[in-house]
């Protein structure tokens, strides 16, 4: 489509931000917009930036479309849809020059700046024409901006209609109303707006066969496929949608075919202490049990986590990380629980953490977590975050699991024979993992308690018994290195600089690496951690590079601290830190800028290399 006022077109590479009010029903319009671009074959991601509020406060939805498949948050907004009077001014002032603004005409935003493209749309007038029932207008008004964008960006209206229909299912009346609004928006734009911005969508084939999903739904699916039987949880954003999606799946797919009864128990507990207590009780009695929470819940689970560590009881805990305690930014993303979880509880404890980055990994990691929990007879923590858990991501369809379940070391006659007499905490294989029995299994019983027990599970406060036991637990943790998912490494030939990241930081790093290599001539290798304890790949990777940037979404470089605790100082002295912690998902530009700044400093300082705690990339 020729655009008046612009010579160059920017095809399939832009970000859209829709600013609305929480509870105004914009979710449907936003998903239809996202999905229609996806259906046209262009890689996309959709991120919801919402307040801790049910209705009335501002909320923003950002869509990124990128022909190269980069779907991290883009720092710059190319196209703003300003529907919220309250934030419109600030939103417009924050835009970079050249950005376009679709706005509600009465807001008169065009007077604010000269360097932007403005598209005024009289939403109320248009909606009044298509929707006679005044009460319903609020709900369909948002579809109008989809129609306007369809015209401005050249998004196929048929794709929007398709997306709308699948979104609304059988609600025919609602579909009809929304379609009318969509068409009215497009018609208005065609008749009254002159294209002045460079952004357009052109069909591609980069999303063929792909799915769109949120990480929490993927995690839930993984739990169901892992054969979870006991789930206890307490509502908390951004974790709730994991158990809630799981409930839907289980009710649909896990009712016993013959009896019609449930092959699972899901309990909304009274708090997170009870939730994890139920997980421990169930795990101890042989079930695959899990809970899902966020930082505040993790804090409450501290004591039971220690008990699980010492008494060796399996279970899975999802931590969908968010920003700090109480009120403030509970609905914003962060990677701030790394150190807390790694050391969770009192005494000498260390926890196994899995670190999924993609929705597909949320699915596979969930299954890994249950196997590892039973193998290592301890709680396994899966650390996701709000960005991964609640936002919409593209992915390849998931593979059906082919591995049998690993139920770990359950005492059988053979083990009993090798052991002589049953000792619950006797390490006959030398890997720190001992054999357990399960109530009702007919094997010898034992008494489960905290730190004070000997190899036979008898009460003991003897120093040597305690030391033997905690050293064995340390040995077990060592064994775990061979079982956890190894990091994903991309070694760039000749690169002197390495990047280390984990979780959702991955998407910004991927894109930043291409900036660094192509725009700044700095090729980088990349190691993406997928678990703690670290595997030997990590020190080997550090060894191979001169300087390494650990990129993460917290203030103090928590993963870097963990590496300092575990690795040789000759290695950790090469580590530098890039941190992002403003509650928004990390973006590539911030990573690139920060790495280049630090590289310049490194150049100025010559070969003197030490970790400089530099200002955050906010």
């Amino acid at each position, binding site marked *: 489509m020729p655009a008046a006022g612009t010579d160059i077109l920017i095809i399939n590479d832009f970000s859209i931000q829709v600013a609305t009010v929480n509870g105004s029903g914009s979710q449907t319009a936003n998903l239809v917009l996202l999905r229609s671009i996806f259906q046209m074959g262009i890689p996309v991601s959709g991120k919801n930036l919402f307040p801790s509020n049910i209705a009335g406060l501002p909320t923003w939805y950002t869509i990124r479309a990128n022909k190269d498949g980069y779907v991290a948050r883009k720092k710059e907004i190319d196209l703003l849809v300003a529907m919220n009077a309250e934030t419109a001014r600030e939103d417009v002032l924050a835009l970079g020059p050249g950005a376009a603004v679709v706005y509600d005409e009465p807001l008169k935003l065009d007077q604010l700046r000269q360097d932007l493209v403005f598209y005024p749309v009289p939403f109320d007038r248009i909606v009044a024409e298509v929707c006679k029932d005044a009460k319903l207008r609020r709900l369909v008004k948002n579809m109008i901006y989809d129609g306007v964008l369809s015209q401005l960006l050249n998004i196929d209206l048929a794709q929007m209609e398709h997306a709308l229909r699948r979104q609304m299912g059988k609600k025919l009346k609602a579909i009809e109303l929304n379609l009318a609004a969509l068409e009215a928006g497009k018609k208005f734009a065609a008749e009254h707006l002159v294209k002045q911005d460079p952004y357009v969508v052109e069909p591609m084939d980069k999303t063929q066969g*792909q*799915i*769109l*999903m949120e990480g929490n739904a993927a995690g839930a699916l993984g739990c*169901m*496929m*892992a*054969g*979870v*039987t*006991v789930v*206890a949880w307490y509502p908390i954003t951004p974790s709730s949608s994991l158990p809630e999606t799981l409930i839907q799946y289980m009710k649909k*797919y*896990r009712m*016993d075919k013959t*009896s019609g*009864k*449930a*092959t699972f*128990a*899901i*309990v909304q*507990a*009274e*708090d997170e*202490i*009870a939730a*994890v*207590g*139920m*997980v*421990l*009780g*169930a*795990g*101890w*009695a*042989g*079930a695959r*049990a899990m809970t899902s929470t966020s930082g505040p819940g993790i804090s409450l689970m501290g*004591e*039971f986590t220690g008990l699980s560590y010492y*008494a060796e009881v399996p279970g899975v805990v999802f931590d969908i990380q968010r920003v700090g305690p109480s009120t403030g930014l509970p609905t914003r993303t962060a990677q701030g629980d790394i150190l807390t979880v790694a050391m969770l509880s009192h005494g000498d404890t260390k926890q196994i953490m899995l670190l999924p980055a993609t929705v597909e990994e949320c699915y596979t990691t969930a299954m890994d977590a249950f196997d590892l929990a039973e193998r290592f007879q301890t709680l396994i923590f899966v650390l996701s975050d709000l960005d991964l858990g609640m936002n919409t991501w593209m992915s390849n*369809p*998931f593979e*059906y*699991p082919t591995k*049998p*379940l690993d139920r770990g070391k359950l005492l059988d006659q053979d083990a009993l024979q090798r052991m002589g007499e049953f000792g619950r905490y006797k390490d006959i294989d030398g890997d720190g993992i001992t054999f357990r*029995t*399960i*109530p*009702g299994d*007919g094997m010898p*019983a*034992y*008494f*489960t308690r*905290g730190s004070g027990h000997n190899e036979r599970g008898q*009460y003991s406060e003897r120093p040597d018994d305690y030391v033997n036991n905690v050293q064995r637990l340390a040995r077990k943790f060592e064994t775990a290195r061979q079982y956890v998912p190894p990091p994903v490494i991309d070694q760039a030939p000749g690169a002197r600089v390495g990047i280390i990241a984990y979780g959702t930081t991955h998407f910004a790093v991927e894109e930043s690496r291409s900036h660094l290599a192509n725009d700044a001539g700095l090729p980088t290798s990349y190691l993406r951690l997928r678990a703690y304890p670290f595997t030997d790949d990590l020190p080997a990777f550090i060894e191979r590079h001169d300087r390494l940037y650990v990129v993460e979404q917290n203030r103090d470089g928590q993963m870097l601290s963990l590496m300092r605790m575990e690795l040789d100082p000759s290695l950790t002295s090469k580590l530098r830190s890039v941190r992002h912690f403003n509650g928004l998902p990390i973006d590539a530009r911030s990573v690139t800028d920060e790495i280049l700044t630090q590289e310049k400093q490194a150049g100025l300082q010559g070969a003197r290399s030490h970790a400089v705690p530099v200002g955050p990339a906010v």
Partner: protein
Amino acid sequence: MSITTPEPGKKINRIGLEVQPYRGGKTTLCAGCGHNAISERIIDAFFEMGVDPKRVIKLSGIGCSSKSPAYFLGGAHGFNSVHGRMPSVATGAMLANKQLVAIGVSGDGDTGAIGIGQFVHLMRRNVPVIYIIEDNGCYGLTKGQFSPTADLGSVLKNGVVNDLPPIDTCSLAIELGASFVARSFSGDKKQLLSILKAALSHRGTCMIDVISPCVTFNDHEGSTKSYAYVKDHEEPVGDISFVPFFEDISIDYEPGTATEVRMHDGSRLFLKKVAADYDPTDKSTALKLIRDSGLRGEFATGMLYIEPAKHDFTTLLNLVDEPLATLPLERVRPGRDVLDAIMESLK
């Protein structure tokens, strides 16, 4: 399981076991502690009812009382969990395997203070567990501080007077939905044994508050939880006769003088009426009875409330008959078609 031929003269129960697997380790509690007497009654009840220890789980929180599961039913799996949180562990275990028989032991601090939240929700859910509070009105293990069941005006050894009203765990349990609520005294062998046996025939939460004097910190003059005080102020609500399902005994009561309750497993419970209008299956009368005796400065013991047909939590959740813990893979992992359908819906 090996059942050896018993030596002549040794008592065996209905499933052919001697008393040995019902016994536990040697107690480390103080000599004379009420908790030890309760352990003995538990041993008797499980032995006499012929419950296989291999099907039993014993759970507890933290406290002297919570140590006691180590001293009974050595043949059963035990779990000494954390302070005040045994209810959640018991709930999880029973969801994993509803065929187990769960007995939980707590203290009045473990239940009434740190654990009151979990206690409340255990009662509400009517989880099938026998929940015993070994109630001494103080914290034994941390050396004698008051607990929330201490009576107003009760005096500590060092002269400190309790000036807060007690929590009545039985009233609370009845109010919240427990389907079997009783109070007893560690020194009342016969009553406690009948209650425990009846509890083994019930499906749902059996909340049994057993006054169990702490001889070391709370057995002096001025304490309302001392042996002497309890003996003087106990008011049994009436005789309990329990007839297990495997015994064919007829009990004769004059019409109208006893309530007969048919238990979940077919056993029968005969509760002699103290007053004509007393009905242990009615919440209001039970609550009134507890309150009235409290106002007189006494405490009612015996079967206070029973609702034999109430659905327990595992029934409410509509769980399959087999233990969830051991369901085979094909019953817990949906087929490839399910995953394909879900993937298709997300494209």
